[in-house]
């Protein structure tokens, strides 16, 4: 009797434990999703950035000299999209802010080329970020330079001999270059040279030829200090990055689950198929943004019933990522529209890229209909015209000057072979290999 009760108690306990573990699992999965999504989508800086220690030290030194020693400086951080320029800057600033003296003194102004589209807006934004709207009030300034000088004058601390160092960060620097006369850039670099207020100007851009875009007077005031971020890691380091990005941090709540997860990640990074897939991605684009997109897709499959990422998840994500959009669109076209595209392509080939108009396309279409009359119904001109107009818009047929069209759908020829039946007829008619 006692043993029976004991057994019942154990089974009840084990049931409760399994329920707890499954709900703990649900909570766990939710936590995992939260942490990893923040890492992949919101790009929260976690840990040290990889492979850019040299640039990190350079930038840190530079900023320390401004903030601690009062030197003015300017620098440009150049690198392709997704190479980590903003991330680098944020890391350096985070480290700087740990020093008390800097935290209390340094003023930051963040400008972005996408938001401040001309110099007036930029100046207003600078005023706002330095919290000097009240000081400026309704004053009217003669020139940009006067305004800026006034702002910086207003930043001097109580004893009027020194003023706070100001850090200007210009994101999408190449867009500021297109403003009228480049006045903002000229004035900022001018101040950074004249050494009255310690000012550092840091520009972030993706264009390698940024220096050629600067005007002569602006370029001469720039210190020509450039920090390059070139995604200079090789494939082995890429796999290591993959592992690090996917692993859970050490302070995760459920340690046993974190252990299981990280072991799974290790296992994945050693799997040959996963490595092949990563190799493909690495050859296509080295930057971490595409890796994050892929990992996010794989992560979205993780649920309570499917708590660990598998290799097939990664393969599915890779397939989804590398889908050919043009092939997809062609797949959805009706047969009439495909005939029109083929007619256009034929005209393009025969006339070697010269512009053509709708009448010529219609003639080609008629010629084809006469040959293969049993396949398709011969449509009237207005119907074909409307179909063609809709098609031109989707397929990016470029409009030439006198309302004739020129198409650049050369890459589409391969896609046609995938469609069965009618298109094979069309292919043989046009003798494509």
């Amino acid at each position, binding site marked *: 009797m006692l043993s029976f009760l004991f057994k019942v108690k154990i089974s009840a306990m084990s049931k409760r434990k399994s329920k707890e573990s499954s709900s703990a699992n649900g909570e766990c999965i939710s936590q995992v999703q939260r942490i990893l999504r923040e890492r992949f989508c919101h790009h929260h800086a976690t840990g040290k950035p990889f492979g850019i220690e040299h640039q990190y030290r350079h930038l840190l030194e530079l900023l320390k000299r401004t903030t601690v020693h009062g030197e003015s400086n300017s620098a440009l951080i150049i690198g392709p*999209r997704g190479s980590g320029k903003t991330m680098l800057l944020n890391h350096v600033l985070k480290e700087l802010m740990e020093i008390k003296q800097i935290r209390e003194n340094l003023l930051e102004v963040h400008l972005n080329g996408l938001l401040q589209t001309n110099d007036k807006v930029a100046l207003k934004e600078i005023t706002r970020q330095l919290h000097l709207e009240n000081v400026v009030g309704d004053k009217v300034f003669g020139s940009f330079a006067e305004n800026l000088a006034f702002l910086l004058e207003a930043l001097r601390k109580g004893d009027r001999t020194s003023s706070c160092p100001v850090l200007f960060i210009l994101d999408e620097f190449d867009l500021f270059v297109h403003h009228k006369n480049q006045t903002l850039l000229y004035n900022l670099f001018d101040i950074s040279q004249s050494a009255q207020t310690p000012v550092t100007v840091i520009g972030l851009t993706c264009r390698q030829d940024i220096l050629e875009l600067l005007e002569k007077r602006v370029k001469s005031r720039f210190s020509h200090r450039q920090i390059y971020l070139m995604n200079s890691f090789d494939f082995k380091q890429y796999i290591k990055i993959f592992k690090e990005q996917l692993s859970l941090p050490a302070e995760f709540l459920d340690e046993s689950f974190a252990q299981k997860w990280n072991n799974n990640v290790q296992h994945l990074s050693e799997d040959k198929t996963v490595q092949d897939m990563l190799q493909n991605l690495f050859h296509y684009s080295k930057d971490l943004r595409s890796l994050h997109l892929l990992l*996010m897709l794989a992560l*979205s499959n993780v649920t309570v019933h499917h708590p660990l990422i598998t290799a097939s998840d990664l393969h599915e994500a890779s397939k989804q990522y590398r889908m050919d959009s043009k092939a997809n669109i062609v797949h*959805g*076209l*009706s047969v009439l529209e495909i005939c029109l595209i083929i007619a256009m392509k034929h005209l393009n080939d025969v006339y070697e890229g010269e512009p053509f108009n709708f*009448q010529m396309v219609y003639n080609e279409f008629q010629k084809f209909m006469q040959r293969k009359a049993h396949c398709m119904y011969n449509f009237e001109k207005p119907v074909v015209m409307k179909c063609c107009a809709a098609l031109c818009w*989707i397929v990016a047929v470029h409009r030439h000057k006198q309302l004739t069209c020129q198409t650049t759908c050369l890459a589409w020829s391969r896609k046609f072979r995938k469609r069965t039946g009618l298109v094979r007829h069309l292919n043989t008619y046009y003798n494509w290999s």
Partner: protein
Amino acid sequence: MPNLEHPAYPAATLLRLESLVPCRESQVSMLLSIFGERQQFTFPSIFIYGHTSSGKTYVMQTLLNTLQLPHVFVNCVEYFTSRLLLEEILIQLQNCSFETKHASHVLCDTFNDFVRMFKQAVTSQDLQDQTLYIVLDRAEQLREMEANILPAFLRLQELTDRNVTVVLLSEIVWELFRPSTGCFEPFTLYFPDYSIGHLQKILSHNHPPEYSADFYAAYINILLGVFYMVCRDLKELQHLAALNFSKYCEPVVRGEANERDTRKLWKNIEPHLKKAMQTVYLREISSSQWERLQRDDGEPGQLKGLSAHAHVELPYYSKFLLIAAYLASYNPVRTDKRFFLKHHGKIKKTNFMKKHEKTSNHLLGPKPFPLDRLLAILYSIVDNRVAPTANIFSQITSLVTLQLLSLVGHNDQLDGPRYKCTVSLDFIRAIARPQQESIDTF
């Protein structure tokens, strides 16, 4: 069999969602898995593309409304400038929150102001960290606005530092959107076109109550068999189905056949559908006009839709003028001597002509010609003598008013007006038939 499962949303809601989006379950489940739970971050921008009527707008709206996710839905064609667009987003954002009773007008000129006001609006609401979705329909219009609008929207999560996701819906592929210096790449999702089975399922869904579902399904089957090759657009097919259903039902209404006599019904409808092929896409009669006709109990025979050619009656000399204009437009000047004079010499083919022989004149459109040439050709094709009276000239002007001819160049040109013929060869043939002329010799 419920396909959609998600821990964050109750099963009943998901079941209802599934019933509202037939044939789109896989896309909805992918979107659900990407969105995750309400507070979790998702891709900063998502780009959804697919053909027209593939359900992009409908699925997004249904998904966001059924799951009651906080969202803003804006059509970029309706708000076609950046200012209108940004102000509309901010106004809808105000409506999202429960505190503000009525939306006050916001003034937002630039994206800079937008980011500032957006940050304020989002923090002042009780969104509880939920992801806010901004859905921009017909996103290809964004390319026509200022150059910074599209890249800024793609980065909105980073620029505002809030939990927001921008969803772009478009028919055009992403490669045609990408700016030249690159931008933040969104996650691209494709909504595939409906297969013929899917179309059958969706179209048979809304059958009129008087007839059985099987009858309607058989009708849709026939319709798809005829029209699927030309048109896969769901909206267009629905329009065609509505237009032609009464004709299909005629034998049943008249009592000649019952619902199962498929052969008889097919024989009845086949010529009608053949004629309808002429007017696919043309919408000669719009859906609302059709509904009005039905309501007023008009006969289906009154349907003028099947390409009744507008018959134009022209006076005698106007017909000849039009024919002369067509000849003047489409024949090069060199050949006039050959066609219209009694004794003509041979025309030597120059090198220039040989190169450009391939593009026949008929393909390139009409060329302008001076008034004198028109009159000269007119005199030569009309049998009896024509006096250059004011009557002739006024007929020329009325042809211009009817838009059968068009005036090229300025009104006040001193050395004579120039015209262009704007009608096609078929029209000319139709006019010339009574005169029994063979236009083709010219």
